[in-house]
Structures are given as structure tokens and as C-alpha cells.
């Protein structure tokens, strides 16, 4: 178990040094021992590069990786003592489930009694006890991935466990089970875990701290609640939440924002916005509601309703702007014209994609 420090890391695959060459822009960060972290972002954002630098597969163009203060930048994955779980199961078909789980421990030459104790603990936590004597080759893909997770978790002495999209190939119902198992395991085993994914639900539900990446940079690090309530970058607003945050062009003066000619009251005051910056207003669909049209409300055209079973969202258009809005329970929109109500406390102001903190 270790604390990880990433010190001024940057990476270019083409050996270049300009900002455009860097697939990982200069990044420094500390990850505490025993934490559950997620690296979240779309493909191409640099999250896998960062993961590969931590594991030692990629040697960074610049910067250092420290484990408990010790520079491991020049060490191999094995020397760094890291466990990894990948998107597809990596197990030995000819071995039993128990032998598969024991393999990483045998490799390290642990005494037999200790191996047995550890294997049975992991098997119990993952509900694999009944399968321990079975040959792995006969199992379903889901069960195999469960064993892969077990193999990643079985060693108590690893510096960290890295998960690279481990639930992508799993059916939805089992995803719920494995996700909650991983979280329970994290609590039970006190391991430093780093989970890479493009799936916000997996990242937000697994991690205490989510690191959101965009175009090679970390745009925000925070708890799920922080990322939802106060996205520091418009990309975080868009990427977290389903549907993502509404981000529209607007004018802001003092305690008022103007969208499509309509004035909205703000909770905080914005008196000194950077001159010449691109100003945008962000508000999550959960905090915009449709209502019967009224002269004092911003009026919108209802384009469609997305019925997700447990929630419904309205897709509306205001002039050229498209917004998603909540539908209050029991409301059935009557016609295509609706009014929009906004929760002033939940409106954010962005200048060149960065959130501006208003004054009280």
C-alpha cells in the first residue's frame, strides 16, 4: 500500500515538446494511501497514458512518479509491485478457480497456509467459494472477469491496484453486483485503487475522488458530489450527469444573466468578469423545470420527451439554444409551448470554460 505522487508529469509519444505534441499536459497530483480513485474521460483524453505511466508501461517524457516518496520512474511494473485488472479476463483456462486466485501469491513465494487464507478470504468476498475447485475454462465471461478481479485483489502487499475499464464487457445486472463488491472490497482491504473508465456511473459510484481528464489535462479533481454540484470546467458539466449540464451563451451583469433575451436572477453577483472572455451560463437539467407557459417565464418549444423509466427529461429549444429540463411529477405538457423555471442557486457562470465564483 502506498501514497502516489505524480510530479510534473508530461508525455508526448512523438518525442516533441510543444503543447500540441503532449498527449498528457504537465500534471502534478498526490494520491493518498488507501484511496479509491477514478480517472474519468472520453477516449483520447490521456487517461490510459497516465495509467500506463503509473504502472511503468510508459516512461514519461518529463516528470517523476513517487511511491511513498521513493522515485520509481525507472522501475518496471513488476518492480513497482502493482496489480492490474484489464477490460478482458486474464486467467489460466487449464487451472481451477482456486489455482488462478492463488497464482499471484505462489509467484511471490508466499507460504502455503497464507496463500490458502488469502484465497479463501477473496473467494468469500467475491462469492466464488462454490467455484474454487472448478476449471476456469468452463465458466462464463462474467464469471471469468470476476476471477480476474480476484487475482488483482488477492495480494495484500501491492503498492496499488489499477483497473482499466474492468466492467465494460459485463452485462448490466452483474455490473451492479461487481461494482458494489469492488467498493466493499476496497473498504475491507484498505488498498489504493485506481480505476480508469469513460463511464461516469462506474467512476462516480466507485471512487471517493474522481479525476476528470479532457484533452490531456486534468480539468477537475473532486468527490462525485462536488463534480455534480460545482463543475469547475464546462467539460465537467457536460461529461458528468445524464443528460449533461445545459451550457448556453449568455450575458452576465451583476446579479442578472440574460439568455435569449430573457433575464434570470442569480444568487451571487458577478461584477468583474474577465474582459473579452467567452461567457456561458451552466445549469443542470435537474434544476430547470418545464411549467405551463406564463408571461414571466422564459418560453420554450418542447421538441421531445426522453422517458428513462424512473425519470423523464424534456428536450426544449429556445431560439437557437437546446436545453434539457426536468418534468415535475404529474405534469403532462399540454402543447408544444412551455415555460422554464430555473433554480437560481444552481446557475453557474463560466468565462472561457472556467467557472467563476460569484460574490455573496
Amino acid at each position, binding site marked *: 500500500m502506498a501514497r502516489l505522487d505524480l510530479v510534473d508529469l508530461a508525455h508526448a509519444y512523438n518525442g516533441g515538446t510543444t503543447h500540441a505534441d503532449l498527449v498528457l499536459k504537465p500534471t502534478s497530483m498526490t494520491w493518498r494511501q488507501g484511496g479509491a480513485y477514478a480517472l474519468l474521460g472520453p*477516449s483520447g483524453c490521456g487517461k490510459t497514458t497516465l495509467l500506463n505511466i503509473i504502472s511503468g508501461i510508459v516512461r514519461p517524457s518529463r516528470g517523476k512518479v513517487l511511491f511513498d516518496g521513493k522515485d520509481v520512474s525507472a522501475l518496471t511494473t513488476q518492480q513497482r509491485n502493482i496489480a492490474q485488472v484489464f477490460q478482458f479476463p486474464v486467467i489460466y483456462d487449464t487451472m481451477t478457480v482456486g489455482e488462478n486466485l492463488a497464482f499471484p501469491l505462489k509467484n511471490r513465494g508466499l507460504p502455503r497456509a497464507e496463500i490458502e487464507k488469502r484465497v479463501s478470504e477473496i473467494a468469500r468476498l467475491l462469492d466464488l467459494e462454490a467455484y474454487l475447485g472448478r476449471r476456469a475454462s468452463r465458466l462464463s465471461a462474467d464469471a471469468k472477469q470476476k476471477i480476474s478481479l480476484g487475482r488483482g485483489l488477492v495480494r495484500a502487499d501491492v503498492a496499488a491496484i489499477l483497473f482499466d475499464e474492468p466492467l465494460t464487457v459485463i452485462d448490466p445486472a452483474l455490473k451492479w453486483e461487481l461494482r458494489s463488491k469492488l467498493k466493499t472490497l476496497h473498504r475491507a482491504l484498505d488498498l489504493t485503487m485506481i480505476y480508469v473508465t*469513460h463511464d*461516469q456511473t462506474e467512476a462516480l*459510484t466507485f471512487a471517493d475522488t474522481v479525476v476528470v481528464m479532457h484533452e490531456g489535462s486534468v480539468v477537475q479533481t473532486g468527490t462525485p458530489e462536488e463534480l455534480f454540484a460545482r463543475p469547475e470546467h464546462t467539460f465537467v458539466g457536460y461529461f458528468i450527469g*445524464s443528460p*449533461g449540464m445545459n451550457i448556453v451563451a449568455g450575458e452576465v451583469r451583476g446579479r442578472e444573466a440574460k439568455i435569449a433575451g430573457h433575464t434570470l436572477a442569480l444568487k451571487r453577483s458577478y461584477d468583474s468578469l474577465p474582459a473579452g472572455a467567452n461567457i456561458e451560463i451552466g445549469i443542470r437539467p435537474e434544476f430547470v423545470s418545464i411549467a405551463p407557459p406564463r408571461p414571466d417565464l422564459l418560453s420554450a418549444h418542447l421538441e421531445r420527451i*426522453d422517458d428513462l423509466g424512473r425519470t423523464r427529461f424534456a428536450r426544449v429549444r429556445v431560439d437557437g439554444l437546446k436545453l434539457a429540463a426536468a418534468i415535475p411529477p404529474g405534469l403532462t405538457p399540454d402543447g408544444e409551448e412551455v415555460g422554464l423555471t430555473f433554480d437560481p442557486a444552481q446557475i453557474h457562470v463560466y468565462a472561457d470554460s472556467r467557472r467563476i465564483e460569484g460574490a455573496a
Partner: protein
Amino acid sequence: MTLRLDKVSHMQGGQAFLRDVSLSFERGTLNVLLGPTLSGKTSLMRVMAGLDAPTEGRVLVDGKDVTGLDVRKRSVAMVYQQFINYPAFTVFENIASPLRVQGKPHREIEQRVHEAAKLLRLEPYLDRTPLALSGGQQQRTAIARALVKGADLVLLDEPLANLDYKLREELRAELPRIFEASGAIFVYATTEPTEALLLGGRTICLWEGQPMQIGPTAQVYRRPESLRVAQLFSDPPLNLAEVTKHDGAVVYSDGDKAPADGRFAALADGAYRVGFRAHQLAVADGRPDRQLGRHVFAATVALTEITGSESFVHLKRDGTNWVAVLPGVHEFLPGQALQATLDPGDIFIFDRDGRLVAGPPQE
């Protein structure tokens, strides 16, 4: 065009992938195949396409038997989970390829490729080769090629499964509009209830090679006729419990009791399985808020997952696990005892064979 499967079975290596399937598909419809891995989605599509001949049964197009007719002689386009494009061709040539095979005139090809590219937001990339594109752009190229072909039957086998979550969200929202514009028979396979709901159309729930229920998507979701369909169509998973109705009371297997009124009143005494969805379950710490007529349960928190907009509270109860979805942030700690409540009107009641005997009405 109407495509009909008549008592189709398909065996491979001694294993039945489709069992006595009879289904009918009409022109201009979107049909969602919803089921887990190995439920028969891909097998069904391959038989429809003519890629596999069924072991038994017939495939009919407009009443004409086409069973065993080569796929090249049928009007079919297919999109797979893995993006398949010609790596040496530009995006334009990839999309144009079926039209070139059909020998269409140059101007028509230009026009139709640009239409499809516009629909799928691929116009800026027409001159690139697929390897210079993101996964989402590559898959949109494959979808554009399937659309431009003008086939009567378009089959999409989990087409968004390999794409990023956000991109999936965007394409899901766009696809119904794209389908509407085309007029073909669309068949779309997925494992995900949310995807089915967003696509709409008609849903066919598949399980072990057999259709379990067929109907308008929202209707199948709100009124599953069996426990199996209710489970297939719930994400988070359906919460389950065993109950006994006796002496005017409903008794849950771990002792929680409620008066057998509402829908329970009309049921014969006996044992039932009940199911309800995660968002129907309310939880509160402290004193139970004994809202009139709600069923009240004692439960222990196993874990809380917080997404920022919602909290998923996993509850332990008598050997089973339940999930409650609550809007907003609620941090319940593992081991914490709490009270869960449920409106009995939201409960699906199944008999011992898993058939729905009573449940919320269709809206």
C-alpha cells in the same frame, strides 16, 4: 416489406440458440431486441439476414420463402459491435461502397453519401481514413454505410457497446430520428434497459433463445407479464421478495407484515413472489414515516453509491439485496439500520411460476 420468422429454431454444436421463434416485422418500424449475452439476439439477426440458415422453420419476405437464400441476394445491411470499415478507403469511399457495388451513377452517390454524412455528423471527416478517426466516428461511418445502402432490413447488433458513455448517450438520442427518416425495418440488439427506453419503438424481450414478451417499448417496461421480463427490463436490478397472503395479511419472508388491501385483496391465499423497481423504494433514517398504506420494511445498509445527482442505497434483507435509488446525495453508512417503505400500488405480484398475477396498470 414484411419479414416473418415462422417457427424458427437454430442449433449450433448441439446447443439451441433459437427455439421455436415466430415473429413478424413491418416496414418503417424500429424493433429492439432486449436480452442478456447469449439470449439469442445475434443468432436471430443472423437468421434474419440470411447469414445462417435456421435448423428448423422458415424465413418469409412478403410471404415468399427466402430460407437459405444467400445474404447477397437479400436487401440487408448490418452493423456490428466491432467497427468494421475499409481501412484503406476514406470515410467518403467507405460510405459510398455499397452504392458503387450497386452501380449507382456518380451524382447520386455524391448526394446520398453527403446526406448520410450530414445525418451522422461526419461531414468534416469525409476525406480521412477510418484509422484517423475516434471510435465513435468509426462506428458512425459504419452506420452511415448501412443507411446509405437503402436496404429493406437494417440490423444493428449492440452498435454502441464499444463507444464512450457520453457518445452513446448522444447517438441513442439521434438514432430514432435517423430510423424514422429511412422507412426500412430496423432491428436493434441491446443488453441495456435504458437504451431500449430511449430508442422507443417496439421491444422484443429475449431469454434463452425465445421471445418472452413483445410490445411497444414503454408498455413492456411498465407492464412486464413475467418475472423474467421484469428482471430483463430493470436497471438497477429488480428488487425481489417472497410473500405469503394469509388471513387478510401480506407477510414478507422475514416477517414484515401489511394488510392485504389494494391489489392483494383479490388474490387467493398462498405464496407469491413480488418485485418492484429501485426508484419505488423510499428510505429514511430515524423513525419510519408511516405514510398511509405504505409497506414498511426493516433493512440494513450494505453500501451507498453516490453519483452526485442520485444515491444508490444497497440494502441487506433476509439473504436478498435490494437497491433504492434516491434523488440527490444521501450518505447512509454500511451497517446502519433503517426503514424502507413502498407503495403497494407499485408492486408486481407473480405466481410461483413467475407469471404476473397483478401489478400497476398500463398508463
